[in-house]
């Protein structure tokens, strides 16, 4: 961190925020409850979502004039760390960080006034539909078309693995209004209501307990006001929103890493074999030490990502979030795999939280760009 004096202290409000979430998780969101929710049709708790709204988590990153608390990405980091620790299934990333964040940063004043208060109140949930088949993590691979239709637009195409789509009330969808398949220019972003004619979902659960869908758009007709930002210049908006999402995922991973390390340390101290706690074996002690180092280094990178996620300098922002996700992804792989390994067979059963943490870490790596993708993006900016 350069420039101003380094300060790693959280404000009283931030500390209170974290403690509130911690209390909520221990009282109302234990592992058994979470398992039930993951199996329920909705896949998360509507009650919890209302509770987050009451507690101000949903309004946290939005400007005060839109009913928000004016928080930044460091505040989001604190929430997401707890989302990780509690393995919370509610669509915080999709609705607040990605969807709400994109509207906050790039929506017109009227859209913001119309949408953000409802998002902050938990009345309206968002999903970001920005990836397509065979596009992997490339936001510029957009085959979905947006053609002018009267004074509005007509969209056709498919978006794949849209996180939290089944519960979303609105979608932010990237479509091509000009240029060729992988051109950076010619991409536009549209706000589309769930009930819009021509929009259909194929929904499924995800490997870490959430929900997602493939979204099909068949001649979806939109009013001019559905366009977010300037026509053809949508890539920048998407990248900015996704970069903040990446910082948030780093924080979620850090929350899980910390929780897994605690669980593993506890197991090393209590599980006895050969007459002693297995934590007495030096081979396991050293591995646990490596996991502690990985946790500390990851936390540093998550802070780095959160601080620079809000940077107006796109290059600086990209470097920070991609570097952090590449780093945290590798640390998460180490911690996840070794936490399972040191739990022995207890690590590979569904009835213990360890395997659920491990699966979520694995899916975080594959969301919004994996280690290879982010390392490549960081390398190009060396």
């Amino acid at each position, binding site marked *: 961190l350069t420039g101003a004096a380094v300060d790693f202290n959280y404000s009283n409000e931030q500390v209170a925020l974290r403690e509130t979430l911690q209390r909520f998780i221990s009282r109302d969101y234990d592992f058994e409850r979470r398992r039930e929710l993951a199996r329920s049709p909705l896949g998360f708790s509507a009650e919890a979502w209302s509770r987050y709204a009451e507690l101000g988590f949903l309004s946290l990153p939005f400007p005060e004039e839109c009913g928000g608390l004016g928080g930044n990405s460091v505040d989001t980091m604190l929430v997401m760390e707890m989302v990780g620790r509690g393995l919370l299934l509610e669509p915080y990333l999709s609705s607040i960080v990605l969807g709400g964040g994109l509207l906050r940063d790039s929506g017109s004043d009227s859209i913001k006034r119309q949408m953000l208060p409802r998002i902050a109140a938990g009345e309206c949930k968002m999903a970001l539909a920005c990836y397509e088949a065979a596009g992997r993590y490339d936001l510029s691979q957009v085959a979905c078309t947006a053609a002018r239709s009267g004074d509005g637009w007509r969209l056709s195409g*498919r978006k794949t693995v849209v996180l939290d789509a089944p519960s979303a009330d609105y979608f932010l969808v990237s479509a091509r209004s000009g240029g060729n398949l992988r051109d950076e220019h010619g991409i536009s972003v549209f706000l589309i209501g769930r009930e819009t004619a021509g929009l259909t979902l194929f929904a*499924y659960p*995800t*490997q870490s307990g959430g929900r997602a869908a493939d979204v099909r758009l068949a001649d979806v007709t939109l009013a001019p006001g559905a366009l977010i930002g300037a026509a053809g210049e949508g890539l920048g908006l998407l990248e900015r929103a996704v970069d903040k999402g990446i910082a948030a995922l780093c924080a979620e991973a850090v929350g899980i890493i910390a929780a897994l390390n605690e669980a593993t340390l506890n197991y090393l101290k209590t599980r006895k074999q050969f007459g002693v706690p297995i934590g007495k074996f030096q081979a*396991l002690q050293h591995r646990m030490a490596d996991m502690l180092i990985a946790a500390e280094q990851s936390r540093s990178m998550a802070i780095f990502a959160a601080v620079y996620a809000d940077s107006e300098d796109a290059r600086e922002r990209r470097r920070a979030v991609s570097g952090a996700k590449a780093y945290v992804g590798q640390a998460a792989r180490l911690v996840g795999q070794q936490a399972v390994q040191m739990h*022995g067979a207890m690590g590979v059963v569904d009835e213990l939280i360890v395997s*659920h943490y*491990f*699966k979520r870490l694995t899916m975080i790596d594959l969301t919004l760009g994996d280690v290879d993708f982010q390392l490549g993006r960081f390398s190009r900016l060396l």
Partner: protein
Amino acid sequence: VDLKYTSEEEAFRAGVRAFIEAELPADIRAKMGLGKRLQKDDLTRWQKILHAHGWGAVMWPARFGGTGWNVVQQHIFEEERADIGAPPQNAFSLKMLAPVLMTFANPAQQDYFLPRILAGEDWWCQGYSEPGAGSDLASLRTGAVRQGDHYLVNGQKTWNTLGQYADWIFCLVRTSSEGRPQQGISFLLIDMKSPGITLRPITMLDGEHEINEIWFDNVQVPVQNLVGDENKGWTDAKFLLTHERTNNAGIGSCTRALKKLKQIAARETANGRPLLEETRFRDRIAQVELELMALEITNLRVLSATADESRALGPEVSVLKIKGSEIQQTIAELQMQALGPDALPYLREALEMDWVADPSFAEHYRPYAPPLTGQYFNMRKTTIYAGSTEIQKNIISQLILGL
């Protein structure tokens, strides 16, 4: 040194291949190819087909009804089996219990049990681990008390694989609490239909039912089901584990999985090109291929050395087990990673043969995709079961290095 197969061996390979190609039922082959769930019937059907051809046990000596093949022939069979996509045979019966029976059981036990294994009539599972006895297996507590012509067995086994299919279970039980923990253990064969046995499924992290807990509540076991001498079962147990670990090298399966990984990477795209052309990903494939090439030769070296010296397999199998399990895990991880965001959907029903993808989904979601993430999760077990990597390294440290 000669790493080329002789013309006789190549002819043998062609014969093996022709047979499997011709006789492997198409439905089983399709399930294997797409990573679908296999049922007990699929596995026993294949065992019976092999048995009818005299190939029910390619690793057994001829005097017990095996093929009597040498290690190179066995290796060739395993390579061809895996490459074509025939299911592996029940290792618990054929590769773990059978060597114990051949070495330690009495003729009556051999005559009864071995032919039934060969013919696919009995499915065997393993009763080794207990909640308090995992890596420290010798601390096991399931007790067997002699009462006239039978033992009364009480206790609990866990991490039992596919016990829901089993007709029989081979168990380590405590028959004495005197002396060192290893000294009071006996090796007992128990009919799964015996009154007093309860099996509880344990769901694994991939959502599948593969393992179980098993309770024994006053289960009566005839004394003639004791293998070897009472209180000397630890010898049989260790002998069996050595065999188990050799099988865990899984070279044939790794070779097939690696081939599949390359096919997946050639079909998936990144930056508008096949993922296989992305250096960062391609090098990871190259790295695991090198590990596998080395292991294949190490495996043959170990097997030929033991054959040449006419001795039993020793602690060197720990090297094979560690490397083989890690390679399986790495390949499974790369297969999942190759999918990118398509690794996220969890489609349990897609593991059944009759699953038809929703058309809008099928356009982008490849038929090979649904099982891959679960397979990665599932493969974490390989460095834990059959003696964890940590235990294998202890064996290397103590028995090979003398530390």
